[in-house]
């Protein structure tokens, strides 16, 4: 999509959004259902690690703790899953935040080498909610799928 067609505005108060929480920092952000998580981060002056922003490289890969995501564009499942699976966490669902759009409130665990960067010094709201482990224990069905057309 050319940039002029991209939703670059802030969410209106009456607009549906989902709350996305990024662990371990616990950073929370409101994500519209017409933007990806990385687009929402960028819109709010934040960054996480990403590279191609097109779902091809896996640099942004994160673990879904709770919640549901979908992909408005086709993604390669091998890239979503990644080559290396953490022993004992074979069933942990992965996602690509550069292409994923939330369909519910979502808790994501970033890669241990990833972090949320506050590019412009905005004060980041912190979640008072459960830790990722607690969230996983009580969370609803986790997963991601293509967006319904």
């Amino acid at each position, binding site marked *: *999509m*050319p*940039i002029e067609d*991209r939703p670059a505005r802030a969410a209106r108060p009456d607009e549906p959004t989902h709350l996305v929480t990024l662990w371990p920092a616990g950073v929370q952000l409101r994500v519209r259902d017409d933007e990806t998580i990385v687009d929402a981060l960028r819109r709010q002056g934040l960054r996480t*690690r990403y*590279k*191609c*922003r*097109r*779902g*091809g*490289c*896996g*640099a942004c890969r994160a673990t879904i703790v709770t919640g549901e995501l979908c992909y408005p*564009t*086709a*993604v*390669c499942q*091998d*890239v979503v899953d990644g080559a290396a699976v953490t022993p004992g966490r074979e069933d942990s669902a992965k996602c690509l935040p550069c292409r994923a759009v939330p369909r519910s409130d979502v808790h994501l665990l970033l890669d241990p080498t990833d972090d949320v960067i506050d590019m412009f010094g905005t004060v980041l709201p912190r979640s008072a909610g459960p830790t990722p482990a607690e969230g996983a224990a009580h969370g609803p069905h986790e997963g991601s799928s293509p967006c319904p057309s």
Partner: protein
Amino acid sequence: VSVMRLGYVHIKVTDLAEARDHYTNTMGMTAIEESDGMVYLKSWDEGDHHSVVLQEGGVGLVKLGYKVTDEHALDAIENRATAFGARVERMSKGDNVSVGDGVRITLPSDHTLELYSEIEYVGTETGLLNPDPWPRGGLRGIGVPRLDHTLITTEDPALLERFFQDVLDFRAAERLVAGAEDSDLVGSWMFCGEQPHDIAFVKGANGKLHHFAYHMPDWSALLHAGDVMSMRDVPIDFGPARHGITRGETIYFFDPSGNRNEVFSGGYRTGKDWRTITWTMDQAARGINYTHREIDAKFLEVVT
């Protein structure tokens, strides 16, 4: 030297329509043929039927095609590749749209390499009679004139370098070495004609594509390409910057599936009497990005 150049790059894309839009409207290539979920594209200054093939489903490299001078060269390459111990088979006219008989080799790095001498000649957009310097109808987007080279990854760069030397008569323009005695080959930039490189490889996973590159006339064309990328929200990897290795100028960026592309200009002229340049690991970042002398770890990790 019987191998002339990188003829085609055949890649997988997650969404054919998005990829087609990128390669035609952003890069400025022309779709010559579309059939069976594939798009065959060429650049305006290329005469052969296609130089990029898009295939829907997944991401990454399907195969590379290098064009050789004639059928006898194919026989020689087949014999040498077999003697080397590579898996070799004959491919027939029609296996690839518009491409004639050839030899298909599975490289020691698990990449598929096709050698061919015949491909349908479509012609450049400026023709062969009193041509204009560029198409009168103008260029779309970046308006790349032609494909240039590719960089792939391999677990064993030394083995792949020996293959390209012994079987295909390539020579190393530049080499990146590591280890206590600078004896471990990390990367090699190899040519078959007089370019700085027609193929390059660095240590990494077998079978993967790091990028393929288009040739651009000069630095200012690169900056114009950068403007087009921003207008069309193409994710940039790095650049515009100068390479130490090859002395070329570059912007790396990603197609809509996350396959890495490059626009490349400049560089020097090589040839049969070229003496190989060596880069050591302490200067590797300068070799790759001479301007910034630093590279993001993901630059070498991210492949498709």
